[in-house]
């Protein structure tokens, strides 16, 4: 690509990072982008997988585990678990197959039927992986919940998904679930992993229920369109949405692992995302296993030193992480990386929110290679747009669409249809042509919201972006008020609802305030009922209230008090205006403003 060709690209102080693809070892799976895209078909991608024996369909857990367990990879480490206290435990593909079969048998013994939802909420313990994959084997729907959620988000998500089984720890159960048990009457069984005595209905100890079960289990015929995973995500309004993914999604998990993460079978791969979110499932569980690599699971929360230790000691070769972590590591500086032997590392990728060009380039300085940003969402199930090992990187860009994925920038028309904007670098909504295997098949019980996320053949992502003349996409912002904090979507409505439940609060509006490390942090503006005074004690009271209900990951970090919030004539709070003012940006169109902030 010539320099002239970049004239329609976003002006950037960061020049493209050139790749010498011939010199890369191993040879990148996606070596020649254009020819690979031209030759690609989802049928061919499907043929990379085995399918259930005797043409019985397609099951994620079979592709991830069982097909390797019975073959040459049986004794290979599938998961390498690094415990908080310094434990290091390898689980081979054969062991993982047996453990997941035990779990599937345990579900059967409990009378859990295929199609029923099995929720998993715990830290990154081996049992989490066993339960997710075991549930898939049993034909159940696996739904991960982030363990930093508070009781309220947990209750809402379990109600929405009709949770029948929950796998968690005694500690999390006591702190977050026991108090909401009456709100989830459909929850029949709770499997408790680890030590600790808990009282309650339908409680079972993992060691007695799962470890006692048979390690032999035959996966029943699985239709590729059977529901497999339920991932929750947030919109601006209303309750969270449960995005449905089917077993066929594994075709996309697998091939995106090959192309976007460049997984080769000898890799030691580390996806740092928590399986409570979609990245930690698609790429923390499924894609590395279908590709037969060894996947690192680190139980401890982020700590920069510890992470460098893991990269070095475990000889991680492919690393998939997130902007917040990269930016935290940048604060330590490049010297820490330089004093280490990171010679095994060959490819680094990032997802969750746009990776700022400084961080892409910092990869070069600290690790001798750039971070490869990529883009996708809960609804897309897998990576859609990416920077690839063999392609030049434009720092700050999310890259180019995966083979098999057609992405476009569109503009909404009054008719409700959309039109594709072909002109380069014009802002519009990022849209994907429907039909890839890991596309969500619905929002559970929310047909109308699902329908609204499409216009004709296009899935509308809710992200605003631009495409340059060479086909690289650039993120601009969200089309709605959803907050993106540390890579996770947070619905302002969910936070506002919890605040309003406090007797002192009259109104609340929640925005994402830009933060150099988190991307955005949750900030609330609150008006108080008569008889309540704004004070530090009140601030603490409300933060504490929100944390108890919502958990640390969702609760606001900052609360400002106001006498009035800006509202439209219909009484809708104008979050956008609060945000513009918070940032000192132009207020934009305020013609609908009826009652202003005080």
């Amino acid at each position, binding site marked *: 690509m010539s320099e002239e060709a970049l004239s329609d690209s976003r002006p950037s102080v960061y020049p493209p990072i050139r790749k010498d693809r011939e010199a890369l070892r191993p040879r990148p799976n996606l070596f020649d982008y254009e020819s690979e895209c031209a030759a690609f078909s989802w049928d061919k991608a499907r043929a990379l997988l085995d399918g259930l024996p005797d043409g019985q369909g397609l099951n994620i857990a079979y592709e991830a585990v069982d097909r390797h367990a019975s073959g040459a990879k049986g004794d290979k480490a599938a998961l390498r678990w690094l415990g908080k206290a310094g434990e290091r435990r390898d689980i081979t593909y054969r062991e993982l197959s047996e453990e997941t079969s035990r779990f599937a048998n345990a579900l059967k013994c409990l009378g859990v039927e295929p199609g029923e939802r099995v929720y998993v909420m715990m830290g990154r313990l081996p049992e989490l992986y066993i339960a997710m994959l075991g549930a898939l084997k049993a034909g159940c729907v696996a739904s991960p919940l982030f363990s*930093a959620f508070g009781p309220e988000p947990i209750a809402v998500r379990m109600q929405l998904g009709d949770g029948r089984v929950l796998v968690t720890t005694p500690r999390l159960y006591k702190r977050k679930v026991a108090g909401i048990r009456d709100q989830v009457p459909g929850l029949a069984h709770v499997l408790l992993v680890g030590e600790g005595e808990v009282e309650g209905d339908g409680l079972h100890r993992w060691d007695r229920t799962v470890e006692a079960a048979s390690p032999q289990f035959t996966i029943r015929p699985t239709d590729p369109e059977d529901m497999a995973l339920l991932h929750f995500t947030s919109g601006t309004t209303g309750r969270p949405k449960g995005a449905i993914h089917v077993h066929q999604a594994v075709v996309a998990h697998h091939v995106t692992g090959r192309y976007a993460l460049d997984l080769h079978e000898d890799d030691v791969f580390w996806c740092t995302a928590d399986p409570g979110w979609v990245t930690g499932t698609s790429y923390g569980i499924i894609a590395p296993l279908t590709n037969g690599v060894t996947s690192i699971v680190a139980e401890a*929360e*982020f*700590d*920069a*030193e*510890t992470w460098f230790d893991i990269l070095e000691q475990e000889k991680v070769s492919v690393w998939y992480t997130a902007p*917040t972590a990269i930016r*935290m590591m940048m*604060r*330590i500086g490049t010297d*820490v990386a330089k004093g280490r032997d990171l010679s095994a590392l060959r490819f680094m990728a990032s997802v969750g929110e746009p990776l700022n060009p400084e961080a892409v380039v910092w990869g070069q300085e600290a690790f001798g290679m750039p971070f490869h940003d990529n883009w996708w969402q809960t609804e897309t199930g897998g990576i859609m747009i990416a920077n690839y090992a063999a392609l030049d990187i434009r720092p700050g860009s999310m890259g180019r669409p995966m083979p098999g994925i057609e992405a476009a920038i569109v503009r909404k028309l009054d008719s409700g249809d959309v039109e594709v904007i072909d002109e380069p670098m014009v802002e519009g909504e990022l849209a994907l042509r429907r039909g890839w295997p890991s596309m969500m098949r619905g929002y559970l019980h929310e047909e109308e919201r699902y329908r609204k996320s499409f216009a004709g053949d296009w899935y509308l992502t809710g992200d605003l972006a631009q495409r340059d003349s060479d086909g690289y996409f650039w993120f601009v912002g969200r089309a709605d008020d959803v907050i993106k904090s*540390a890579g996770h979507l947070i619905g302002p409505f969910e936070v506002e609802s919890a605040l309003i439940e406090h007797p002192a609060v009259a109104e609340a509006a929640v925005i994402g305030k830009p*933060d150099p*490390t*988190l991307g955005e*942090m949750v900030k609330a503006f609150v008006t108080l009922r008569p008889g309540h005074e704004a004070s530090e004690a009140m601030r*603490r*009271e409300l*933060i*504490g*209230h929100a*944390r*108890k209900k919502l*958990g*640390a*990951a969702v609760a606001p*970090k900052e609360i400002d008090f106001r006498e009035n919030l800006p509202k439209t004539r219909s009484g809708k709070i104008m979050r956008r205006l609060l945000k513009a003012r918070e940032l000192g940006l132009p207020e934009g169109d305020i013609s609908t403003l009826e009652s202003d902030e005080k």
Partner: protein
Amino acid sequence: MTKDEIRKLAIDILGGIAPEADFDMLEDDEELREALDLDSMDFLNFITGLHKATGADIPEADYAQLSSLQDVVAYLTAKTA
């Protein structure tokens, strides 16, 4: 600063970040992030608060040495001695 002063300071800062926590129940050797449900941002705010209140320089590389109340007291006692 004395050990008691540091302990009190740490609890006061944590009280602003996780006001819902019951600090009487917090054991000195408990991991703060887990016991108080602190996420990475909360933990950073805690360190920033300690730095502002004591003037002690706390480089990122030392964060792992500040995981429990007793760690914090030991670390800052040495730093502010």
